[in-house]
């Protein structure tokens, strides 16, 4: 959101609006949904490997920061000035649309193809995550095949727990490996 305000300051209102819509509206909502879905537990601190490289890392970081500060202070006075937000025609929607459909038409079409591929990939990922055999399986959870739930067929009805799809397939036998095609 602060980046969007910076874009407005740089006389790019269309990009600012797209930033707010795409990031605050879509990506952050997706991330929050995933975090809620996955009920993340506290991650444990682990010891730092390669501890001997820490002084070298600090030295390199100091050198890089010094270089950055030097170059930025050196080019600090550039002849270019930011364009006036009220007078400019560069950042408005019509100029962006004109550029997008004339010079940059091929990248635009490739981008649409990329979005299509992302949609298909996400759907196939969501679909292949479950094994459908005798029961709907969420790997890692307690799994009870349907013929095991029936108490007359089996005497031991203790829950069976699997941790990945391979174990689940072994547990379910041949039935689990065939996916439902309907």
């Amino acid at each position, binding site marked *: 959101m602060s980046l969007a305000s910076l874009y407005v*300051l740089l006389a790019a209102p269309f990009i600012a609006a797209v930033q707010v819509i795409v990031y605050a509206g879509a990506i952050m909502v997706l991330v929050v949904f995933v975090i809620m879905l996955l009920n*993340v537990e506290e991650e444990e601190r682990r010891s730092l490997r390669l501890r001997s490289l820490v002084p070298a890392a600090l030295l390199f970081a100091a050198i890089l920061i010094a270089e950055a500060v030097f170059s930025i202070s050196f080019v600090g006075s550039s002849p270019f000035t930011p364009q006036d937000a009220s007078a*400019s025609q560069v950042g408005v929607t019509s100029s962006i649309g004109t550029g*997008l459909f004339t010079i940059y038409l091929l990248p635009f079409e490739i981008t649409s193809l990329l979005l299509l591929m*992302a949609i298909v990939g996400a759907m196939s990922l969501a679909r292949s*995550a479950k094994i459908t055999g005798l029961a709907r399986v969420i790997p*890692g959870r307690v799994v009870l095949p349907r013929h095991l739930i029936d108490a007359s067929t089996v005497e031991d009805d203790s829950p069976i727990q699997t941790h990945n799809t391979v174990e689940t397939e072994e547990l379910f036998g041949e039935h689990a490996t065939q996916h439902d095609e309907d």
Partner: protein
Amino acid sequence: MTPQLSWYLALSAILFTIGVVGVIVKRNVISMFMCIELMLNAVNLSFVAFSSFFRDVSGQLFVFIVMTVAAAEAAVGLGIIIAIFRNRESLDVDDANILKL
């Protein structure tokens, strides 16, 4: 005092560095994912700054395309994260060290 081009570039460099350090240091998949988004945003900021200072619309078109790629990456990446979490009950990248699901 009008803002200089180097200010925006410095902010962009700082954001990009935070993203890189987060990807390297963090072990949580979602944190790494958000750091990648931060890097994309840093590049977007420098694009828009150059576009505004040079009065050329091409930079903003690039930003548009980069945002599309970021959205596609978010969709597919979060799908992969959910699939990995279902199989391994863990968000640690060290647990997901084989390509097989």
